[in-house]
């Protein structure tokens, strides 16, 4: 069967993450939340440690920690610290605590590299189901709230005047972000999840006239990066996750150049 090939499974996993990350990544860019994605992702190494010590699934452990992290940041923001300071403190503390926690795990030899940089070639059928389940959930969530999320992003006050609660929309984004981080950890690892969110969206910006177009083009760029990156990684025997991000960065350079020439 087709899914028996590890390369096919890897390709499908990459596509799933790319498709879910695209619209979310656009919101991360529009709302200037890039570090927010980073912090959530970095915290997930703590989730890995927790999952291993309590014998939970990695996905569940990461999801819980990412959710806690994201809501912590949401509530703490705007209370005396600038957002970047707050995120700098939380993101790096989280990854430090995570690494220390992992070192306490006796008898479990875990391949830290696999969580830091992903291990897309080791994606199994269950992983694939989790990734696509998560991706579809995120797409459904963002699609359902699209108009409200967009209004709240343009202006919280305009949202209020139309009877939309921007705090609620922020929470929905936060939850979606945590889900994407949890499913993407296997594909690109905690260090590169934010790249997969931001780079395709940023690369899509010069080609877009409307928010919907930007999200669709970002999804296309994400998909091309995932497939192209896998192929290159296979051909040159390079780590798959970073290679995927390199391809995305290449597309970003290309579209930026394009917009420079056009103006």
């Amino acid at each position, binding site marked *: 069967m087709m899914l028996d090939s590890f390369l096919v499974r890897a390709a499908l996993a990459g596509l799933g993450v790319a498709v879910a990350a695209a619209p979310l990544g656009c919101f991360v860019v529009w709302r200037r939340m890039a570090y927010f994605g980073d912090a959530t992702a970095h915290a997930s190494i703590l989730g890995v440690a927790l999952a291993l010590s309590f014998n939970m699934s990695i996905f569940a452990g990461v999801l819980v920690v990412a959710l806690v992290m994201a809501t912590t940041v949401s509530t703490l923001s705007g209370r005396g610290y600038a957002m970047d300071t707050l995120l700098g403190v939380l993101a790096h503390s989280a990854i430090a605590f995570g690494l220390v926690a992992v070192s306490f795990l006796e008898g479990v030899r875990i391949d830290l590299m696999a969580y830091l940089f992903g291990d897309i070639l080791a994606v199994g059928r269950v992983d694939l189901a989790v990734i696509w389940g998560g991706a579809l959930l995120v797409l459904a969530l963002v699609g359902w709230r699209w108009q409200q999320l967009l209004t709240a992003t343009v202006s919280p006050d305009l949202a209020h005047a139309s009877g939309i609660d921007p705090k609620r929309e922020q929470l929905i984004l936060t939850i979606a972000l945590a889900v994407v981080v949890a499913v993407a950890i296997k594909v690109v690892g905690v260090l590169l999840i934010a790249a997969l969110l931001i780079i395709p969206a940023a690369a899509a910006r010069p080609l877009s006239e409307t*928010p919907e177009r930007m999200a669709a083009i970002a999804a296309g760029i994400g998909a091309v990066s995932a497939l192209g990156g896998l192929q290159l990684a296979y051909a040159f025997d390079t780590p798959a996750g970073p290679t995927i991000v390199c391809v995305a960065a290449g597309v970003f350079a290309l579209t930026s150049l394009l917009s420079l020439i056009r103006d």
Partner: protein
Amino acid sequence: MSALVEFQNVNLSYGAQKVLDDVNLSIAPGEIVTIVGPNGSGKSSLLRALIGALKPASGQINHASGLRIGYVPQKLHIDPTLPMTVRRFLSLPLKISDTEAAQALQQAGVSDLGPRQMSRLSGGQFQRVLLARALLHKPQLLLLDEATQGLDQPGSAAFYRHIEKVRDELNCAVLMISHELHVVMSASDRVICLNGHVCCEGKPDVVASAPEYRALFGSGTGGALALYRHDHDHAHGDGCDHDHPHEVAE
């Protein structure tokens, strides 16, 4: 008909700083009300409390049930990373048809802006688009927060003439804040003078001659009202006395 919006003893603070102090007011259907007051007097906070963006520390803000609000904020920054055509912006948060969009833009006098990016509009164009969007769903209450900021004098005069026309067509109430006392006040049914609390309120000429108003703005502004009335530049009193409700309040 009952009030569209009613503030009952509303108090609002930012941290330790009191912004609104026991504010009572109500807006009736179809009337044009202007809020005047010095910088930091809580004008914008009052509008933001009205739309629910700020929660009062105490007191109540009641809306008529199903109230449709059109809100034109003081300033709106659309991040350049967010691609947004004027046409797309009009469909936030409720989708509208192309015909409706074209009509709205035409009424606002910016028919050809539909495909333009919001972040590339001039100040005047931006305000007109904001107004067009606010009017799309036939609001019962239109809120304007310094809507003519960044417009030159003929531009803002044209803007207010447009507002009056809109009010006559939609028969909506208008609650607005402005620095341009003379233009705005001459177009208002009622003026509320705010300085944390409601100093005085009433018809424009009455408020302009009230001692509370004079204390805030000086009697020099009485002359600005000449557009509206010619004979109200004499002083009634010599200071701001907040302890008693002003006799002209309705």
